[in-house]
């Protein structure tokens, strides 16, 4: 044991070394937090995979699955190539400012010892983009060409949504600095944009064959409703990673903040996410009594409160989610009346609920301050942002799908739709033994009978 009397210098050196340890551990904790948020977000894609395959008829189940897998695989590299640069460069509008460190050949976009955070934030945002692209995926099942779908999903997941995020989900984005936009859980920049992009595509794609007979919508039953329900629950599980990734883990003394640099914490997110989840389920059940919509209601509920997760009273979040749950069903019915075949209700679940979320924040949080020097939250600001999100999603979705339609590359031929895409394009069947009759007596010996 040392008997030396500590001096001011030795104590100062000790404090500095302890501070360095603390700083390093804070940075590592930040990386660990987003690492697991990103991992959890992959569960969203497992869920999308299950529920889209389940929602398809058996003849198209594998085609629905493979386009979902390829969407994930394509959006990640495209987000690496352009997404991060768009996010950091377009905060003022459509003219990019030069952010050379976000370009894919920058040394910041790779392993770097003195820069913790860039890669893990990029990864979380890449998965947000993949979620955005997957929202389109379910709506267009059973008739879109995979090549056309990939062009569209990369456009919305790698480019369009992140432009909206640069405008409204960045501390310097013009929707925040000029209008006080508030959307902490990405109801607008992810869900509304993806939902209205999808609507634009669906208008040009047209309904599945047999969906409308003499203008009246028919039910095309999913080949596996249980798989869709489990898939939806997996998406909701993954949303805890998504919403965790929306909160900023600050090092130093600041603690948690929203992406707008206003104070918050995970407790606020926990209260309102769960209350929103429950409210949405109940709202959709009231409106439909339908298993698929009841489970979708959980997603509707979370999306409907995500924009204001940091500032809602949990009971208010529940009410908002319940009301939006009923509204989303009515919106889906309205779309059907106009001949839109949205196979999984993506426009209503994501588009309608995302816009409702922005407007509800405007109604209930009017006057709430933003970070110093920025305009407060207002209904007018939220309304303007909602219109921007609708246009930003719809215009590219409609335009590019129209171009693909004109080139005759948007939709599979009618005879392929009849037989099923799996058999024609993938030369595979999801359940090759489905027509083998079940035997009365199993050929497997019953071991228990011989004991």
């Amino acid at each position, binding site marked *: 044991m040392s008997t030396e009397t500590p001096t001011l210098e030795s104590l100062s050196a000790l404090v500095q070394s302890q501070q360095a340890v603390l700083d390093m551990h804070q940075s590592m904790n930040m990386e660990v937090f987003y690492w697991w948020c990103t991992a959890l977000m992959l569960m969203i894609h497992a869920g999308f995979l299950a529920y889209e395959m389940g929602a398809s008829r058996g003849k198209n189940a594998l085609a629905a699955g493979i386009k979902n897998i*390829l969407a994930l695989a*394509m959006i990640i*590299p*495209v987000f*690496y*190539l352009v997404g991060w640069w768009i996010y950091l460069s377009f905060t003022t509008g459509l003219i990019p400012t030069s952010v050379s460190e976000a370009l*894919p*050949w920058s*040394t*910041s976009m*790779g*392993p*770097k*010892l*003195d*820069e913790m955070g860039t890669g893990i934030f990029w990864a979380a945002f890449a998965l947000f983009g993949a979620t955005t692209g997957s929202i389109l995926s379910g709506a267009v099942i059973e008739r879109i*060409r*995979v*090549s056309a779908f*990939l*062009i569209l999903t*990369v456009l919305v997941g790698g480019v369009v949504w992140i432009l909206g995020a640069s405008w409204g989900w960045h501390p310097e984005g013009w929707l925040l600095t000029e209008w006080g936009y508030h959307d902490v859980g990405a109801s607008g920049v992810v869900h509304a944009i993806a939902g209205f992009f999808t609507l634009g595509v669906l208008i040009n794609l047209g309904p599945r064959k047999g969906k409308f007979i003499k203008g009246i919508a028919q039910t095309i039953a999913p080949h596996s409703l249980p798989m869709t329900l489990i898939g939806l629950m997996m998406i909701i599980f993954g949303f805890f990673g998504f919403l965790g990734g929306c909160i900023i883990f600050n090092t130093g003394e600041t603690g948690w903040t929203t992406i707008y640099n206003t104070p918050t914490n995970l407790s606020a997110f926990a209260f309102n996410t769960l209350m929103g989840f429950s409210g949405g389920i109940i709202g959709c059940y009231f409106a439909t009594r339908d298993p698929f919509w009841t489970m979708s209601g959980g997603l509707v509920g979370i999306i409907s409160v995500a924009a204001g997760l940091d500032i809602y009273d949990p009971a208010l979040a529940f009410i908002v989610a319940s009301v939006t749950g009923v509204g989303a069903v009515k919106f889906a019915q309205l779309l059907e009346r106009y001949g839109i075949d949205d196979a999984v209700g993506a426009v209503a679940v994501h588009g309608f609920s995302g816009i409702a979320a922005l407007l509800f924040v405007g109604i209930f949080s009017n006057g709430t301050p933003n970070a110093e020097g920025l305009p407060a939250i207002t209904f007018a600001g939220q309304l303007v942002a909602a219109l921007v999100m609708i246009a930003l999603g719809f215009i590219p979705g409609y335009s590019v799908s129209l171009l693909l339609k004109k080139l005759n*590359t948007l939709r*599979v*031929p009618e*005879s*392929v739709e009849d*037989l099923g895409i799996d058999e*024609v*394009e993938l030369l595979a069947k999801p359940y090759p033994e489905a027509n083998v009759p079940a035997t009365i007596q199993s050929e497997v010996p019953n071991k228990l009978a011989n004991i």
Partner: protein
Amino acid sequence: MGTSFLSWDNVSAYFMFADKPLVLILFTIVVGFICISLIMSIKQHEDKAFQRHANNQKMTPN
């Protein structure tokens, strides 16, 4: 051939070719090329599969 450093002292970006921007730009172009060629390849595959299906339908007696 790809290493950008020979000692861990004062290293910042430590991935391969980090000190060769032209190589990194080339890699970026290759990534873009692979993504675009995937879509083109899928389109070709679809065209062939749909054509094969159409031919089969023509050959099948009613």
